């Protein structure tokens, strides 16, 4: 048990909203002024603006001097719990892992930050080489052939997949006929939501009694209308679908494309790949498996890999090397391209970090990362199932890959406290826990993903926290009732957030609706 048990209290500054700190006349930053020579020649500039386009009233922005700006945001950062500061294994499916600091050095260098996307290729040979090499690395990691860096996250990776699927079938004259995409219930919600945005009818396969996509349902869903599969594997349960090659094979025979959501590939590096499992396309979240920090929710990258048959349809441009000169360039001349999913070329600093991470580990190290993630997960699972009130989805399947979906169903029945209550209590211990993607087909779910970054002691400490919370649910219900106690703030009234009359999405809305502390005007 941890030496620090019970000692945690999150920073609690009671920091005002920035508008409450505003003092008219203060300046946080000065901007350059036009040189005298310019002023003489063109005047104040403002008179050149058409009269009706001159801003009539200045924007109501707060006014603060720089020390007060820094203090405010520094305090807010201290009221946030990053992966650097906690044992962040409770955000299952998201692969929270160490973000190596050396990679920040690379990402923050002017050699990265100060590049304009329209610079002449001769001036960006360094970053183009990084992109080119990264494509080569992923060729080996996925078994597929070509890549696009454009998608700005996993969901965006799914958008790129769906856009490619459309371009492929359109080119074959089958676009109108193939209007369905098949996914599974334990795949990421975006694997259903994104194809809908791209105009597909989405068929969601339910799990069978073993938790795997139901084969019979799949057989009857598959038809000449199927445009593609969007599968995660292992799914959110952590169970690997051992029949996957059969699924992809059947789809291929029907002329559908097989798309692999490898947002989280953290248990599989060097063990099994998209290619061997029969997939045509895949995307990898570089901010998950490949260590780039999550940034409170982006910027990120869902790197897209495709089989060579699909290469002509990739988003434009792609990075190529001239074999004669060895120089790198961007190839925009791609008549069959599906277009673009993002402005310019992607979130390039994230790619740079991922490149550095892969190159710091090599083939053996990547495999070690994955095998350790599997080890950690199964160790944690063994011990977690000893905690009172906890069970696991599909218990017949003993081993899981990199994560597992558990349930507090029994505890909920016995104490009235379920996963939402645990989630509310856990900040008191300086860590974090997420329930699970909806819908909650597994009752009172939670998903733990103890990636390779966490030591045995870390896992034991987190297990100790889970044990204590379970004990409290059974024996000290008053502690759970109005938790959290030592977090930044106390119990939040979420009803305000679902009621159009009461919600306030900006300070402007708040001050229109309320005065003082939530007193209705």
């Amino acid at each position, binding site marked *: 048990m941890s030496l620090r048990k019970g000692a945690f209290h999150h920073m609690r500054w009671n920091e005002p909203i920035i508008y409450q700190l505003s003092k008219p006349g203060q300046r946080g930053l000065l901007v350059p002024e036009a040189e005298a020579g310019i002023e003489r020649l063109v005047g104040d500039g403002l008179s050149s603006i058409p009269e009706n386009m001159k801003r009539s009233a200045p924007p109501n922005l707060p006014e603060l001097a720089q020390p007060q700006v820094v203090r405010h945001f520094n305090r*807010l950062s201290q009221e946030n719990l990053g992966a650097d500061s906690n044992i962040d294994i409770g955000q299952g499916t998201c692969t929270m892992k160490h973000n190596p600091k050396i990679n920040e050095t690379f990402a923050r260098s*002017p050699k990265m930050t100060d590049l304009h996307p329209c610079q002449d290729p001769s001036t960006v040979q360094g970053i183009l080489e*990084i992109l080119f090499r990264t494509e080569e690395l992923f060729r080996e990691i996925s078994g597929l052939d070509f890549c696009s860096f454009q998608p700005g996250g996993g969901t965006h990776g799914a958008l790129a997949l769906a856009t490619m699927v459309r371009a492929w079938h359109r080119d074959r004259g089958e676009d109108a006929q193939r209007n369905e995409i098949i996914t599974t219930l334990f795949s990421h919600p975006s694997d259903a939501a994104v194809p809908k945005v791209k105009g597909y009818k989405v068929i969601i396969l339910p799990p069978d009694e073993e938790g795997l996509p139901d084969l019979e349902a799949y057989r009857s869903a598959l038809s000449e209308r199927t445009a593609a599969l969007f599968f995660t594997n292992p799914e959110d349960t952590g169970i690997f679908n051992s029949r996957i090659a059969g699924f992809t094979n059947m789809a291929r025979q029907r002329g559908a494309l097989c798309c692999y959501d490898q947002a989280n590939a953290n248990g599989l590096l060097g063990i099994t790949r998209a290619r061997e499992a029969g997939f045509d396309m895949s995307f990898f979240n570089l901010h998950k498996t490949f260590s780039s920090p999550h940034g409170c929710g982006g910027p990120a990258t869902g790197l897209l890999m495709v089989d060579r048959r699909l290469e002509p349809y990739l988003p434009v441009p792609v990075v190529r090397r001239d074999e004669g000169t060895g120089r790198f360039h961007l190839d925009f001349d791609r008549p069959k391209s599906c277009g673009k999913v993002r402005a310019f070329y992607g979130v390039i600093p994230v790619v740079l970090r991922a490149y550095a991470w892969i190159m710091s580990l090599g083939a053996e190290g990547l495999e070690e990362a994955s095998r350790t993630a599997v080890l950690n997960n199964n160790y944690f699972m063994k011990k977690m199932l000893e905690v009172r009130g906890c069970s696991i989805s599909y218990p017949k399947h003993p081993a899981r890959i990199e994560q597992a979906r558990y349930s507090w169903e029994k505890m909920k029945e016995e104490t009235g406290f379920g996963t939402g209550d645990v989630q509310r209590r856990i900040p008191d211990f300086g860590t974090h826990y997420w329930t699970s993607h909806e819908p909650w087909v597994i009752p009172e779910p939670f998903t733990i993903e103890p990636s390779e970054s966490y030591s045995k002691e870390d896992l034991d400490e987190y297990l100790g926290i889970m044990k204590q919370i379970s004990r409290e649910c059974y024996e000290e219900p008053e502690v759970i009732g109005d938790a959290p106690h030592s977090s930044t703030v106390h119990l939040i009234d979420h009803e305000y957030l679902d009621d159009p009359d009461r919600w306030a999405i900006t300070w402007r809305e708040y001050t229109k609706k309320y005065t003082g502390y939530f007193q209705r005007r």
Partner: protein
Amino acid sequence: MTEKRRVYPYIPNSEPGVREAMLRVIGVDSVDDLLGDIPDGIRMKGRMDLPEPFLAEADLRRHVEGIMARNITAGEYLNFLGAGCYDHHVPAVVDEIVGRSEFLTAYAGEPYEDHGRFQVLFEYQSMMAELLDFDICNVPTYDGAQAAGTSLRMASRITGRKKALLAGNMNPDRLQVVRTYLDPAMTAEAFGWDKNTGLLDLEDLVSKMTEDVAAVYFENPSYLGTIESQGERIARIAHESGALMVVFVDPSTLGVLEPPSRYGADIACGDIQPLGVHMNYGGGLGGFICTKGDKRFVEEYPSRLFGIAPTNEKEWGFGDVAWERTSFADRETAKEFVGTHAALWGIAAAVHLASMGPKGMADLGRVIIQRCLYARKVLGKIRGVSTGAPSGSCFKEFVVDFGKTGHDVGKINEMLLSRGVFGGKDLSGEFPELGQSALYCVTEKTGKNDIDRLVEALSDILR
């Protein structure tokens, strides 16, 4: 497990002793025993064929920095490129805050342990709403292009119509992304603009204004840098036929330019990269969508919207507003989709706007316009060079026509490069009707000396 194992600094349980102990607890002999679900037929045979790694951090640094050293940055040369990604000053205070590991390494904590993230992004939404003079702003989207695409889809859902009329002078790179978002739910048609003035062609707009039009979209300033002053008339044309007006706006202009809400826009969108985010080779983009507070609009956002709520100890609490809209809540009936977008850049923009305040934004707008006017004027004096069309007012970009110099833009830019200058973006491919023209950009970082140096270089080249 007798082979000599390497211990990796990022992988604590790679140490053989602890590994053995954990395997014993699980009750298996090796990790392979845990991978039984993965059939042999799809296992990797042998090891991945990857380059030898740089295991020591010092070696890795030499390797990566060695490659990146081949880049020449916009700071090392003189830069006049814009076209959707802008070389503004990034305040040190912004870099300091977004570099804080509490923000940088966080992801999706709850409003308790991640109170700070919720509050900053609520403040971001609040300041953006003020800048745009609207009630609502979302947590950032991937980029301004997504914000534009989603704004149009929101307009389609609100009006029940399926067509977008897009200004012919919009950013072509952005147009390609917008098409991806519209296809196949909506169709798009371009309406014209006047290449002499840069203004939109309202006659053409009216002629295309049919009953299936959900939204009229234009950019202000336009891709070619001109300020569109006919917003009110465009709004009237759109509204009279039951369509909405969507305006993509550069937020760095809004200290001095009227925001779209004041000339009738129903939805304003844009990119926050100019507000304190490094260019990052185009990777610094992040989008915003602003609307009025009408529930009809709020419920069509796919994005996270952070709201303020009371706690039982009277603190400021936060959480997700109208969660049921999102694809996290219901994957099949959601408004489009939401995921990991560009939240950290929202934090950057919050710090930027709080530092600038209303006076900073006004000063910023003023100096940029002054330098832009100066550059346009002095470049226009070079023999054969014209900066007269489009003639409209500009903010930070303007078109330079080299048609009469006898050189094409590609060649001129090559020669500028050899003099340490990144010339303006070549428009000859994107807008052939402008001939051999380039789009030049100046910001508050571009001093008079820099502009004079450009004039000197061009005069020398075109001599």
